């Protein structure tokens, strides 16, 4: 993908061409590198994922590459180098998120309920009892991830739990059908909070696995960055979500593109002024800007072409 350059409305905090080039280089590096970490694990525990077109596997690698870019920014903002170990943590985290999302989205309502119940047991008792190849892969990846940090660190465990609770609420809200009526403001706010929490807590889980300590001011800013990622993501997935009857804040607001633009500017402004000056902040802003622009485009494309579950968007 060619660098998008400065967006007309982002002049005030556009990190500039040097950061755009760096972002391109990192994407290239991580897209090439995540397979080195994940392919052996997938081959050993869920080899069917590597058969045929490998659509799922390729989507998993793309998500993991993105997590690495975000993780890279998180580590640098926290004052640490994104070394090989962190690269591995980012890759495992991406794969873990991909598999968790697939349990929720791809196997029907009963499987979703079963997964949430068993994940709850894993978090409260440590027992998961993997039944399928995919579950074994998920368990091994999660276990390897947990082995990289003291999982009983108060912030790590709170972030993991909060993420789980947000996922659970998201699933419950999917059942909220509007039956042709507009959602009440309170319901819309609930959807917005749910989106905020899903990715806000997720980026804190990633940060908590990458960094030995999270300062409170860092924690808040990264939470905002995570929330923005989810608003952007939900806008990009608008048509596929509607197709599967899934309600999100972004597919229920009256003018989603305008709403997203407002959210984007508000969040980026806070990040630009609140995060310490440096390469990490610039990288995060460059990533979010590109994610915003590509998801606006994805939304427009899918409105015309329809939503394919296996289409991979950079």
């Amino acid at each position, binding site marked *: 993908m060619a660098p998008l350059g400065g967006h007309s409305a982002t002049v005030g905090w556009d990190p500039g061409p040097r950061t755009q080039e760096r972002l391109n280089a990192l994407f290239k590096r991580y897209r090439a590198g995540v397979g080195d970490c994940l392919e052996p694990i997938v081959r050993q525990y869920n080899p069917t994922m590597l058969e045929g077109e490998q659509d799922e596997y390729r989507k998993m690698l793309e998500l993991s590459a993105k997590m690495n870019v975000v993780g890279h920014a998180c580590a640098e903002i926290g004052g640490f180098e994104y070394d090989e170990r962190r690269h591995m943590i980012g890759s495992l985290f991406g794969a873990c998120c991909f598999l968790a999302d697939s349990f929720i989205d791809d196997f029907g309502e009963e499987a979703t309920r079963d997964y949430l119940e068993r994940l709850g047991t894993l978090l409260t008792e440590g027992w998961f009892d993997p039944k399928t190849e995919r579950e074994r892969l998920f368990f091994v990846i999660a276990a390897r991830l947990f082995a990289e940090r003291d999982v009983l660190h108060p912030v790590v465990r709170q972030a993991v739990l909060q993420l789980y609770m947000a996922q659970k609420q998201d699933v419950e809200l999917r059942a909220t059908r509007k039956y042709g009526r507009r959602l009440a403001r309170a319901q819309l706010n609930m959807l917005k909070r749910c989106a905020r929490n899903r990715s*806000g807590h997720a980026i804190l889980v990633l940060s908590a696995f990458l960094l030995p300590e999270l300062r409170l001011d860092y924690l808040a800013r990264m939470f905002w960055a995570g929330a923005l990622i989810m608003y952007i993501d939900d806008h990009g997935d608008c048509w596929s979500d509607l197709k599967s009857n899934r309600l999100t804040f972004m597919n229920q607001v009256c003018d989603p593109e305008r709403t997203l633009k407002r959210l984007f500017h508000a969040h980026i402004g806070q990040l630009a002024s609140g995060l310490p000056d440096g390469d990490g902040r610039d990288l995060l802003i460059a990533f979010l800007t590109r994610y915003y622009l590509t998801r606006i485009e994805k939304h427009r494309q899918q409105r015309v072409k329809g939503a394919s579950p296996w289409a991979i968007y950079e």
Partner: protein
Amino acid sequence: MSEGIPTSRVALIDTIGLRIQELHASGKLASDQPLLRIDNSERARQAPFQFDAARGQLHRTGCRAIPPSSRSALYGVWEIGTEGKAVACPRCNPMDKPAAAAEPDAVPQQKAKQTEEARQDESTKPEAQQGEAKQGEAQAKPVGGRPQDDHTVDMLYGVLSIVSQFGSVLRERGQEYRKSGAGAALGGRIEKIYAEVNESERSVLDVLTTSLGTLAAALREIEGGLNGEQTRGAGSRSAEPSAARPRQDEAQ
């Protein structure tokens, strides 16, 4: 798993983790105690301070300035760092004087680990390499005493390494176990036997035996497989313990 740990060892750790889960699923573990409890939401709610991640504000627990929309974005905080002043709520002023702080989970171990990691990050040395270096140091030290003591000393080092690695888990397990029916039933005897030992050490000792038993059962299963004994596949759910292997509780 960290950089520096050979792939074969990583695979072994995966296998042990999966086997422990399989043992639980097949009902072969003696008790139905939790293995690890990550969920600390109850304790987090009782922490002296709450950080509102959505608004970037630190409150005393129970502060009325915490908006309802932030309830799902609160993080329990037990100790406030230097950055606390910049994010302190002006209404409850958490920096004013220290609140009575209940101890967070796993703090001693966690602090030690973090300090160690901060050092590591400075030197870009992965945790695993540092751990291996420590192990090497321990092995290099002359044990002293008679050669027949080596076995015992090796075992002691082994136990210490597990306590060191799983210290926080063991402590948590200890707390869980003490609340359980089995733990309560043992309580009187344990107190009598370990009257000389203080409470926290007693808790660790209780749990250590169970954890080691679980680990030992998994290792026996794996060893059985390596020696050509019949092992169960991933999907198998046989409830019958193998006659060739002792039950986990018999090994304790």
